[in-house]
């Protein structure tokens, strides 16, 4: 799915669901007989979350037909979440997550031994801050959007390369502190994050939920070290579950 489609999907979701959300929230606010025991009555929350992700590496391959990137390379995500709800319908949420932004690349050379795969595993620390709209009581629907900052922690490559003799395999950690990497790699990460979730509240203070979320990076993963730079971005979709405690 292209980035424009993702943005359009999010926008459409907000536009379609906001009236419903507001209407539902109005009704809940007006109805004083709603079962208060099923709603978190506190303002602050903390919890853990974890799940799987799929990273889509955005790169223009141009005329290099021998190379191809596989969309949606899998990875994992886990971390902590903090929440603050001034009202039941609104939560400010700050997460700290370890997130994989991986990609596969294939290099097909029929004249030179066939197939040269490469898997790059990248681990990021991402800190998203979102504004979350909550709808419902016992079972709640969440729509959220915001920004995230992050840092590229590590990188690992595994695959096969063309060499003067043969096609040796490699399985190496990329030294992101090396002089070459310091010239090339932009370890700072920033972008937008948005998504939707569903949760259920137990015993007033325990909330179990699942959510789908996109991280849409707007920082090139490379520094601007050359004029004709081919920009490279990550868009990461995360499907994760969370356990939240309200204080």
């Amino acid at each position, binding site marked *: 799915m292209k*980035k424009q489609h993702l*943005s359009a999907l*999010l*926008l459409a979701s*907000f*536009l379609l669901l*906001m009236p419903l959300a*507001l209407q539902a929230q*109005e009704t809940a*606010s007006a109805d004083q007989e709603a079962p208060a025991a099923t709603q978190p009555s506190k303002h602050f929350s903390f919890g853990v979350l974890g799940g799987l992700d799929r990273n889509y590496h*955005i*790169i*223009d391959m*141009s*005329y*290099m037909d*021998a190379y191809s990137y596989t969309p949606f390379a899998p990875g994992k995500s886990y971390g902590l979440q903090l929440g603050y709800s001034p009202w039941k319908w*609104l939560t400010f949420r700050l997460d700290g997550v370890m997130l994989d932004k991986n990609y596969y690349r294939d290099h097909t*050379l029929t*004249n*030179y031994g066939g197939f040269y795969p490469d898997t790059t595993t990248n681990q990021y620390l991402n800190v998203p801050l979102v*504004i979350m*709209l909550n709808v419902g009581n016992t079972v709640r629907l969440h729509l959220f*959007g*915001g*920004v995230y900052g992050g840092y590229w922690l590590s990188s690992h*490559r595994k695959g096969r*390369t*063309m*060499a*003067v*003799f043969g096609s*040796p395999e*490699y399985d*190496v950690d*990329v030294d992101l502190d090396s002089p*070459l990497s310091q*010239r*090339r790699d932009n370890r700072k990460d920033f*972008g*937008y994050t*948005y998504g939707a979730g569903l949760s259920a509240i137990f015993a007033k203070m325990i909330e179990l939920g699942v959510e789908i979320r996109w991280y*849409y990076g*707007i920082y*090139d993963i*490379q520094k601007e*070290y*050359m*004029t*004709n*730079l*081919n*920009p490279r*971005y990550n868009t990461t979709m995360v499907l994760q579950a969370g356990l939240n405690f309200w204080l």
Partner: protein
Amino acid sequence: MTMKTHLFRTVVFSSLILLTLSACRKESTVDKFDNPNSRTCTSYAIQFETVWQGMDQGYVFWADDTVDWDERYRTFKPVFEAFDTMPYVSMAAYQAAYDGLFQGLLDHHLMGIFFAPGKNGRFAVVNPGSNDYSHPTYSGAELERELQVLRSRADLIDYVGFDATIDPNTSMSLPGTYFALLKGKRAGEKIAYFRFTDFSLSNMCYNRYNLYYKISALAPIKAFYGTDDASGMTPYGYANDESVVGIIIDLRGNPGGKTDDLAPFIGSLSQSINLVGYTRVKDGFGRLDYSPWAEYWVNCPSRHLLQPKPIVALVDINSGSCAELSTLLIKGLPNGTVIGERTYGAAGALLSNSNYSHDLFYSGCMGTQELYEDYGNYAYLGYPELLRIFNSQYHNVFPFYIYTSTFNLVDKDFNQVEGVGVQPDIEVLYNRNRLWNDNVDVQFERAISFIKNGR
């Protein structure tokens, strides 16, 4: 709901939507000029842009090169654009523009041919690495003289080699191999000497029914290795003879050639496979996009292991490419010593066919392959015929071809070899005066002295 609450919600949701809409990523411009292999250049400016971008994306030494390629663009783009507006462009100005564009680049394999239409087939050629020569370009005359000096030595026991080393039509070296057996320090001790003009030994062995190869190459190979089937060392050659106490592999003036020769003719001098260094290729359009380093082993296909004895690689500034890889290999042997000058510094191997290079990798040769092939026949075609061919084929377009390394090679300690060369263990500089006037090859003398005295 109060007006205040409603206003607040509106601000929140509007902010979220605006954040989404303002998502901005830069657009790629890497394919602005498409593949340099397939782009038809119809003006000086387009030729320049295509060449610049091809090098920008496909040059393998950007990590170590000190040339500011973006600055070169800003400097020379106006020059080539001006050519398109001028009624007459002199070949001197055209040559000077490309000399300036490529000046100082690290790649010592780098050679560019640029064709200017309307000039009766004339073209500009750049070879920035050749500016490093410390003595005149090897034309074959030095080889001829050094062999003459060798054959006149009093301690020469045997010599196997074809005397005609220079093509009289071109003054270029002819492919050939040379073997000599010399007296050692003590009675009965011998020193084996083997020299070859380029790395085409396997080719000569496989084409054994070619009369010229049969005369010029196979007998010395068989004398030294004991076989002329390019399979490595055998017990039957002089290299493995018990009376031979030292070996000299003369790589002076050897410009390299096919890496196929490395294992049977150099690797088999060792007693095991050898880690020569590490290689990497470009791995993306970015100048600093690289594959991980790959170990670079040279096999040892000997059917009979060479007995441990001193091996000297004799090298000079004209030893390039495969000759440098061989030098690295011998330098790394426990019984290996390199004597002479630093080598040329063109260690990056390459795939010379642009159709199988830049199309398939992010690094390597690019441009019109036929231009390079025609230019390669220059010595045999002659200059007027070459101009006629060029003019007939390219009279209305601006083709080019750039011969550049596919691989970046470093030594075992990750030291850059390109543009630096392999440093000798014992430096002995070429002495033209002594070679031509005193009949003394000082580099060869030092190699003999080292084997005899162990230092």
